[in-house]
Every structure is written in structure tokens, then in C-alpha cells.
């Protein structure tokens, strides 16, 4: 660490999503004489902002602990007796398999919109059961340019996903 690293400075943010966030979300708008005239933006911004479902996140972090080399981690901390257990390879392999299986199951719940209508008990907690499924479908078909509704749906997309996470946590 004697030599300071160089962090490259790019003229613009590296991902198109970040560039779009700047010029679609930020910047001056609009008064009586100037309006925003855009098509297809809803799809783009939803794509950029889909928030990872919390159940998915928890499973991902649980899985990340499996990749930890706790032996190395704990040598510095001195907890040797706990370590023998968890580094026995076979068992942790099995766990990992089961875990990714579970993760796949969860993602199929999130992905398969149309076949889980009966799971929608959370709908009464939310404003309008039918509407909250739309963003997932929209992002699944994001290659089509058909969307021309206003951008105001984006925030809702984020909010609407949450109740479904709760549903799945309950199960």
C-alpha cells in the first residue's frame, strides 16, 4: 500500500443505465412551454431499477457464507474448534446444492407471474392486485418497444414487488 492506486476517471458513467438515470431523471424540466416527449422509457428505467427481492437477497447472502473460508477468517480471531465442522467438504457441498435449488425455486416464483395468482393473498395490502404484476411482465418483454405509458409507473414497480416478497417469506 505504499503506492497509491489510480482510479480511472471516465468521461461518462460506464453503464447505459447510469447515463439514462442522469439524463432522464436529472436535469431541468419543463414548464408551460417545454414538455418531455419520449416513448419506450418506462421499459428502460424499470430495467435499470428492478430491486432485488429480499428473499432472494437473503438466500444469496446465506450462500455467500458458504463460500467463506472461515478457517482463514478465524485463524486471526482464534476460534479453532468451530472450524473443523464446517470445512468438511461433503456436507457443505450438499448444503450448497440444496441452497441453489431453493434459490431457483424462489426465482421461479418471482419469474413465473401467471401461475401464482392464487398466492396473491398480499393483494389486499396493496393498491390493486392486478396492477402489481405488470412490471415483471414488462421487464420480461423489454425487448419490445410497445410501451408508451408515462414514466410515473417506475416507483410503483418498486413498491409493488414488496408484498410478494412478504408472501413468499410467509410460506
Amino acid at each position, binding site marked *: *500500500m505504499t503506492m*497509491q*492506486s*489510480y*482510479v480511472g*476517471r*471516465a*468521461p*461518462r458513467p*460506464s*453503464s447505459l443505465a*447510469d*447515463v*439514462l438515470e*442522469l*439524463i432522464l431523471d*436529472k*436535469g*431541468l*424540466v*419543463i*414548464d*408551460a*412551454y*417545454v*414538455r*418531455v*416527449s*419520449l*416513448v419506450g*422509457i418506462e421499459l428502460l428505467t424499470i430495467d*435499470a*431499477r*428492478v430491486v*432485488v427481492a429480499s*428473499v432472494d*437477497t*437473503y*438466500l*444469496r*447472502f*446465506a450462500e*455467500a*457464507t*458458504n*463460500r*467463506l473460508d*472461515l478457517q482463514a*477468517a*478465524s485463524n*486471526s*480471531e482464534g*476460534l479453532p474448534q*468451530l472450524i473443523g*465442522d*464446517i470445512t468438511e467438504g461433503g456436507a*457443505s457441498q*450438499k*448444503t450448497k446444492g440444496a441452497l441453489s435449488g*431453493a434459490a431457483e425455486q424462489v426465482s421461479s416464483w418471482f419469474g413465473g407471474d401467471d401461475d401464482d395468482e392464487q398466492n396473491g393473498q398480499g393483494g389486499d395490502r396493496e393498491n390493486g392486485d392486478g396492477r402489481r404484476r405488470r412490471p415483471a411482465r414488462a421487464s420480461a418483454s423489454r425487448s419490445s418497444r410497445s410501451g408508451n405509458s408515462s414514466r410515473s409507473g417506475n416507483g410503483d414497480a418498486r413498491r409493488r414487488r414488496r408484498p410478494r416478497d412478504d408472501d413468499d417469506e410467509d410460506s
Partner: protein
Amino acid sequence: MLCVYGVVRSSHPAADSGGAGVTGVQGRPVFVVVSDDLAALVGEVEGELLARRRDVDAHLTVLERALSTGDVLPFRFGAVAADAVAVRAMLEKSAPRFRELLARVGGRVQMTLKLVRDDDAAVRAVVVSDARLRQVVTTHQRSTVFADKLALGERVAAAVEQLSRRDVDEVTRRLSAVASAMEISTATPPAIASIALLVEPDRLGELDRLVASLHDELGHRLSFDYAGPMPAYSFVS
């Protein structure tokens, strides 16, 4: 229909040259509409705009060119007005606001710094530093019970979130020494924050060094997407 890129003072070189030589959205030339001490950079466009890469880049390029020779208030992509008369009316009506904003961002540029977390490194950091969490991890790591895994993941995720909040606080605290204004927004994981800084061009070297030293300290668990200089998008709304 006219697409509006941004507003400059009519003393800005771009206003002087009538925007000559710059190509904007839909490959159309950029020209200026002047009203008193203000001028709008505009271009003819047809139909509704699409946020296509080519046009998005053109919008940015027009504004970056203007920024390179003076102060500019960037408009949102897709802002349109019926004709030059409407643009002039906008300039007249909003003149006080434009003047005030030009004074606020004038002589400064925007830089952005996005912090992206390496989840594995963050998990390691929290488990190593917290003996109780490590105990929980070792107990439940092998469990195949779904609820156990969720509970473990939730604990770890909470600790990682906390670590990230501390990292963002530390980064912004240090950056505030160089920035004359800052806008911090949350980002989609694994990104933990998008920070926009308003900086005097003379201090960019100082900022570069600061970002590099932050990267030295936190680079093992955060990657930095550092960009600019660009027009002050985040400071004109």
C-alpha cells in the same frame, strides 16, 4: 418541434457561434434561441423521441461541448417545445430561475462516483469482525432447512447493509472536503450509493487523489465507478 438541450448565458461562446458545427439528436444541427441575457441550445426533431443510445449520446455531447467553454444548465433528455417562440417564452418566464441556477452551478462541473459492493468481500468483512455473527454462521451454515437459511441470510444481509452504510458515510464525509455540493442517492444492489459532486475544475486533481486513497482503503470490498466532468445534471432540479 424543437428539442431543448440546455440553457446558457447569451455571452457563452456557443450562443455566439449559434451552436455552429455541433450535431445533436436525430443527427440534426444545434442552434440557439436567444432572449436577453439567456440562450437555449435547441435542435429540430421529428416525432416522439426514443432514448436510443445514439440520441442519448448526442444529447450528452451537445451539453459536454457547451460545458467545455462555459456554464450550462442541462435539460432532461426529451424536453421539447413547439417552436422558437415557445422557447423564447420559456426563457423569459423562467429567466430569474435560470440566472439563479447559473450562479449556483457556474464555474463548476459535476463528477459522479458510484460505489459497488463486492458481496463476498463484504460478507467476509462482517463475519470476521463480529464473533457473534460468526457463531451464527457456523451453526446454521450447513442447515438445509429453508427457514434457517433465510434467517441466516437475513442476519448476514443486515450486517452487510450496516457495513455499507458506514462505508457510504465515510466516503461522503471525506469527499465533502472537496465538493461544493453533494447529492447522494441509493442505488440498486450490489451498488450501494451514487454520489454526485459539484466541483471546481481546479480541484479535480485533488478529488482524483482523494478517490484513489479511498479506493486504497475500501477497494477490497467496493469498486468505484468514477466519471466526469459533466454538466451539473444533479444540481439543477
